[in-house]
């Protein structure tokens, strides 16, 4: 979800208004993905590196996210969307926000529709380090560790491999996003800025993805870390 800052700069607005404008895009994309039959949607909202941004902007983001989560919680639940928050381990995440995240997860944990994973305070490397720690703590012998076993120690181990990553605003970097799961992902880089990103753009990206000659396309989605044929 890149380009909030540039979107605001183009309109001579403060960066914060770019973030505010992103809310509509988020809701639109969630709805578009759900009606297009996407089973797993992940949004990269805040990275472990984003803490380096100015204090005021981080503070604003925390309040904005809290407001958005609370505003849309009943709707997400009513649509049968299962919501999860990946990361959220930094003590700088306000306690009230963490509780709202936990509440939304509790509320929607039994929903059977699309699974929405919001990566918040997320870092792909940190997840891998966490998995390694968990393996060592569990006393797993070195020979017993394979990809599947390792993946089982990542947070939310039921998350399948990522098929498609959409990075808006033309940026072409991974930026520490779900490093383990994007191993076989297709990447699309639409030039549109995130606040302007809408359902048609999303469907266009899906279409591009369908055109790709994926080696593993067409078979059932592979579980995270499962060895490939």
């Amino acid at each position, binding site marked *: 979800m890149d380009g909030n800052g540039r979107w605001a700069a183009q309109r001579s607005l403060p960066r914060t208004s770019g973030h505010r404008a992103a809310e509509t895009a988020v809701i639109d994309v969630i709805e578009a993905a759900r009606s297009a039959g996407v089973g797993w949607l992940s949004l990269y909202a805040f990275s472990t590196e984003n803490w380096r941004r100015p204090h005021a902007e981080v503070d604003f983001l925390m309040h904005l996210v809290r407001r958005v*989560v609370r505003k849309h919680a009943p709707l997400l639940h009513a649509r049968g969307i299962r919501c999860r928050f990946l990361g959220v381990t930094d003590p700088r995440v306000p306690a009230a926000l963490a509780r*709202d995240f936990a509440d939304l997860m509790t*509320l929607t944990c039994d929903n059977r529709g699309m699974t929405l994973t919001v990566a918040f305070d997320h870092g792909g490397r940190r997840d891998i380090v966490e998995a390694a720690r968990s393996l060592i703590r569990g006393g797993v012998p070195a020979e017993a560790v394979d990809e599947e076993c390792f993946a089982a120690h990542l947070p939310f181990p039921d998350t399948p491999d990522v098929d498609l990553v959409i990075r808006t605003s033309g940026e072409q970097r991974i930026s520490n996003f779900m490093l383990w799961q994007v191993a076989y992902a297709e990447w699309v880089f639409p030039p549109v800025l995130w606040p302007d990103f809408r359902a048609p753009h999303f469907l266009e990206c899906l279409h591009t993805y369908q055109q790709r000659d994926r080696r593993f396309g067409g078979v059932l989605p592979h579980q995270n870390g499962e060895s490939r044929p």
Partner: protein
Amino acid sequence: MTHTDSGSAGRIGAGAASPHGRSSWSGTDDRTPPVFGPGSQFHEFFNDPRWAMAMVRATVLEAAHPQIGAALIDNSTFVAHPWRRLRNTLVSLQRMFGADDHVRQREAARLNRLHARLGGTDARNRPYDAMDPDVRAWVVATLFESAVTMCRLSGQPLEQRAMERLYAEFQAFLAALGDEAGHLPPSLQEFWSYYDQVVEEELENTEAMRIILYKLFDHLPAPPLLNGLPTLWAAGRTVAGPVLGAITVASLPEPFRRRAGLPELPGAQTAMQGAYLAAGLARFLPGGWIKADSVIDLLALSPDSDDPRARTISALRDRMNRAGALIRLITPLPPEPVPGTADGGLQRSAEEFFAQVLDQSGNGYLDWPDLAAMARELAGRLDLDEPEETRLYDAFADWWRELQAALDADGDGRISAREYAAAVPSLAGPALIKVAEVLFDATDKDGNQTIDADEHRALFRTAFHRDTAGAEAAYTRSAFVRDFLSFMSGRRRSTPFDPLLAQA
């Protein structure tokens, strides 16, 4: 206790001939209805919803007795852990009034040991003693009188014969506790004058009574089942608390209300009679719908207990949790978010731990009665006999001395929340380790140095957790001691000890 001195000799003489001699409880004679168990007058009341109100009323009348009031203030956990206390009381009453004589004798012995440990002096330096036979007679008297009054207030007064039977049952209850006859008047006629006399001359406006009437209901913590809905609980409580208080006040004897200076609220009498009448109508519900013990059990069931009803309960709890989450999410944001209210963290703050676990009596201080209450709860769960019970109390007493030496900075003999927070690390001393070991020995009934599934269930009322069991289905001494210490000092949540000592 002047009233008993004046008349007790005569009462003992008459009491010997009265029908509450020990031989009559076993119900050998087919003609006379049994004194205890199914068929007795008390048994008919046990599941009556009116009992809830009558019990509150009886408790207020007990608390108004200066000696009992002082004992409650010092020792009781009813402010901080009312639901656990209520459940324990019901289980105890069930055992005492059940059909099994052996169970009754064992429970009576346990109650006597428990009460023998309660003694001291009140705020005005008057001694109190929970074993004082006159005091115990008064407790039984309030229960009996509240049962009679409950019937009267709900418009279904007991017939004279039924009242006499009920009185004989309560006398037998006192006798089963091992008290000599004579502290309760031998006949019903004499009882009423005894009762009026105590009400008019002995009862006082005690602190314990005020706490029950005006503080307990307003601050009643949610029962474990409804933990996920704090907002809803608090909202219901704000309305129901004062109403319950007013209803209880209105049902107290008029002379006492006058003397204690209790308010007469307009409409309270009508509301009180309406409440009793409505609760009395529940007798038209199909049998088995209302069972006091199952309702209380249900409310007190801890989150992941593996009771047979566990699946339904955990499904219900999940729903409650989700409802709670939804309510929290849709409540408008308060103007300023309160810092440090994160729920569900693994760590809890020193203040929280102090209030939830250490300060069992809820008076804001850690004192010997708080640790004694923990020992009492543990001994009750494990159903300990002598000498294990004394060993457990002794271990807690040693721990208390250790705590006092380490934490009581201002030397007033008790530990305030601030003194505790300032010196948390020194909590895991050798005496605490000793407590853990004694507790392990008491739990390990067969002495095989591991706690197996049944022993685990006796203490925690849950089976092993899937994640903790792992390798073998037993709990070793070292793991038990480690978990106990991390609960008591590291303040870690989510140990099995949490529902044991922290739950309301």
